[in-house]
């Protein structure tokens, strides 16, 4: 079933978010929503949606506001409307657990179907959702290779040129004039990239954490911190 696409949400200041960089020679655009766009292939990447995280906690009697899926999808609707991609790649951990797809509220299911209408949709497997999600459309894959780029959920242990991954939920933190600002961010050294989590309830991991040292052995990488309507490129070494 295909519904119509809900109208994108317009904020007071409509984001102008062209923030480009290259990874393994591919020219990419980071969007301040947390999505990554590859104009050459009209391909949009969103990582770690963690849909139905709220309801997952609910089964353990922790009653988080059950609006996270709707909130995440609404932001996705807005960014899809902006770029009109031919293909959307959900980079793994798209659902918080294996039961997630079955718990989708009917309205959220409709939104998802409308998003998928007229374009390719690829669910990359993640550690939270290793199995193919049922009844949510799209194609399931472990890894997608296209041109110089390889899309997978967890960053590989070897230096992998052209790898676009998620999983780590990078957050960059700066300290200035006695105040600390911390934001989700893209991290890249020009060879590979880790995308921020897109999900409303996805937490974050400081890019100075050990886990990132396995992906970027030196601090010679850049964090692109998500601002209200633009991104800020800050060298990892200056993050705290």
């Amino acid at each position: 079933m295909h519904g119509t696409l809900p109208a994108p949400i317009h904020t007071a200041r409509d984001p102008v978010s062209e923030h480009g960089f290259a990874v393994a020679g591919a020219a990419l655009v980071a969007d301040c929503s947390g999505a990554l766009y590859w104009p050459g292939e009209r391909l949009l990447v969103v990582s770690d949606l963690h849909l139905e995280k709220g309801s997952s906690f609910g089964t353990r009697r922790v009653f988080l506001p059950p609006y996270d899926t709707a909130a995440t999808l609404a932001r996705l609707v807005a960014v899809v409307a902006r770029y009109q991609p031919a293909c959307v790649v959900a980079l793994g951990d798209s659902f918080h657990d294996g039961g997630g797809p079955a718990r989708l509220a009917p309205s959220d299911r409709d939104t998802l179907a409308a998003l998928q209408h007229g374009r390719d949709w690829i669910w990359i497997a993640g550690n939270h959702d290793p199995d193919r999600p049922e009844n949510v459309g799209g194609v399931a894959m472990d890894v997608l290779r296209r041109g110089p780029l390889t899309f997978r959920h967890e960053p590989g242990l070897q230096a992998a040129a052209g790898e676009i991954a998620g999983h780590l939920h990078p957050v960059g933190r700066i300290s200035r004039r006695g105040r600390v600002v911390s934001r989700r961010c893209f991290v890249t050294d020009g060879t590979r990239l880790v995308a921020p989590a897109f999900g409303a309830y996805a937490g974050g991991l400081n890019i100075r954490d050990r886990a990132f040292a396995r992906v970027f052995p030196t601090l010679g990488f850049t964090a692109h911190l998500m601002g209200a309507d633009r991104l800020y490129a800050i060298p990892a070494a200056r993050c705290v």
Partner: protein
Amino acid sequence: MDAPANSSLPDVFQRWFAGKGWQPRAHQLALLAQARSGRSSLLIAPTGAGKTLAGFLPSLVELSGFAAEGGVAPRRRLMSTGSDVRREGGLHTLYISPLKALAVDIARNLEQPVAEMKLPVRVETRTGDTPASKRQRQRRDPPDILLTTPEQLALILATADGPYLFGSLRRIVLDELHSLVLSKRGDLLSLDLARLFRLAPQATTVGLSATVAEPDELRRYLVPQRSGEAAMADLVMAEAGAAPDVSMLDTAERLPWAGHSAVHALDEIYALVKSHNTTLIFVNTRSQAERIFQELWQINDDNLPIALHHGSLDVAQRRKVEDAMAAARLRAVVCTSSLDLGVDWGDVDLVINVGAPKGSSRLLQRIGRANHRWDEPSKGILVPANRFEVLECSAAVAAVAENAQDTPPARTGALDVLAQHILGCACGAPFLADDLYAEVIAAAPYADLDRQDFDDAVDFVATGGYALRAYERFAKIRQDAQGRWRIAHPAVAQRYRMNVGTIVEADMLKVRLVRSRVSKAVARGGRILGEVEEYFVETLSPGDTFLFAGEVLRYEALVENEVYVSRATSEDPKVPSYEGGKFPLSTYLAARVRDILADGRAWGALPAQVREWLEIQQWRSQLPAASELLVETFPRAAKHYFVCYPFEGRLAHQTLGMLLTRRLERARLRPLGFVANEYALAVWCLGDVALHLQSGRLSLAELFDQDMLGDDLEAWLAESALMKRTFRACAIIAGLIERRFPGKEKSRREVTMSTDLIYDVLRRHQPDHLLLRAARADAATGLLDLRRLGDMLARVKGHIVHRPLDHVSPLAVPVMLEIGRESVGGEASESLLAEEAEDLVKEAMR
């Protein structure tokens, strides 16, 4: 109230008093008479007036079995326990203290008369430290008198034992009531009291309190409320002790314009310590305590035993200081509000209060800690750290002379606490909503609770209270066939017990002393020195130094939620900017300070340097009348400054700063930042504020219009980190987020992260949710101090005076000096990010 004759006291007690060479005090006998006629009472007594003994005397007399005829019949049935003969029946007296340590000390003090009079009375404590086996035994075989804390009471009431344990209760003694009722702990305790009123309708209450501004509020707290009328406990006033001897240090040194360290007066403070037996040196923040302690030791040529005490220090360390104090082995302790309450120390003969006293009631209590013999005056000396603080100290000295109190008004019961209580009730026994509602509104803070709010809280506990009914299948509590709410699974009760309480600390990290990093690896092990706020650590880089636990420490690394530090040789540490212990200036003192400023005749009592400062201000600019708000504008270094003097405390000023900059931004004056202190607020802009005001393009009336608390506030709250912190506390107390799960403690860092995300989602999708309502209510009095800001805007309406100046005025100097010292306010996150990114550009172009 007439004191009954001494003869009302049983012989054994009379002999005991006589043996000590004491006379029972009038208020002690009055409380005895109150108890005999079955009446609840609030006892207001200064420190050192034998308040605790007064509270327990009726219980001891009753339990001794010698109650006079006509009194409450003592329970006479005896039963053999094998080795002893005991009275049958349960608990007689329940004592609640805000401090665990206080409960333990009171028990010790109580055992003395019990032993000396050989009374058949068993006294026991129950705190978080009581072993499980003892708690078990207390449930089967309760003592006569149980001393405990509000959290422990909530825990007992959330078991099936409540009715059995408390059914026999005759008396409830609430110590330090003035301090308990000011917080959410007081809300929780009031709900537990309401439960006790129902379980033990025969019990009467005794509240023990220092002097407060509105005793009626405490009197209501002590008895069940009925709709339409305010029931109150009787008031018993102890004879006032000798008036305290309070003065302001008349320094020979130059008074600083700003800052809080009072370093200028150290030699004078040290001389005072030397000339007294034992001195308590109170300061307002933990970082001040560290600084003063450090500096005092620098000049401590006589090696006097001077110790440090504040809430961040390790508990064992604090206990050591307290024990040394009790044993009279110390000459001085530098301390924060960590010693505002607590056990009496006889030997303190001087209290020094460094910095602004912030409120007259707090000051009176601190000074009361000197000389606990109530008939001799306590001696207190105020040491202002800057010129504005001189005004505040001088207002406080006058207030103390009049014994004027400024305790905050009574609380309206918080909804998050109610939610926690409702779950606790369900853990104890199934309940009908109608019954529990009737019980809850008997608690004074909840007397005006709406039925709808109550039902929302029940719904929140059951399934989260969401418009989208997503969690019905997983409900924590659900209704049975009779309509009674009961817990859905025993695990719910287990989790409730692990998370009970209303104290939500800031995110704290343990500080561990390690050897300095020699190789790359940081040595493990080493002693825990205490805890610091996580946000402070976030601003440190390895190698930075700071003062903590009386030492200069070097930050090494953050390892699994512990801050590794080593001893540093640096002399110039980066002082911790703990928030801990910062109190806002009380409304009452603020009004007095405004009066002093406005009335030139009052200046005669001020030190000459301060008088001169005000006179120059008068000449250069002006001083506001008591009802006015003065706004000064002046250009400085290519920026236009806008300074106002509301005297409403730092929190309210910060909120005002946030809202004013939004408005100045809209007026295209391009504000760059602001800084607030206790007395004033300074905003700087690129646009010419003075010109806009003079030409009428900007109106002060509109700028300070009360409508800023409407849309502007809402828009700002969406992003405010302070609001998120407030929400987090509510979410934890209400049980949305549990800090502790069976088997593991959820990392506090995880909790912080997720509550921010929850706040964002909830605010967008259900802005009227119970937790957001609770958070807004907290914001009104808490970190944002909205109520005070609102009152101020109403007060100054039509009384705002603009004074355009060529350059900075004397009155503005203190707040201007804070620029660069205090972190600059504003929701400047974006601009900080931009600066950081631009720095890079500059570097690249160099």
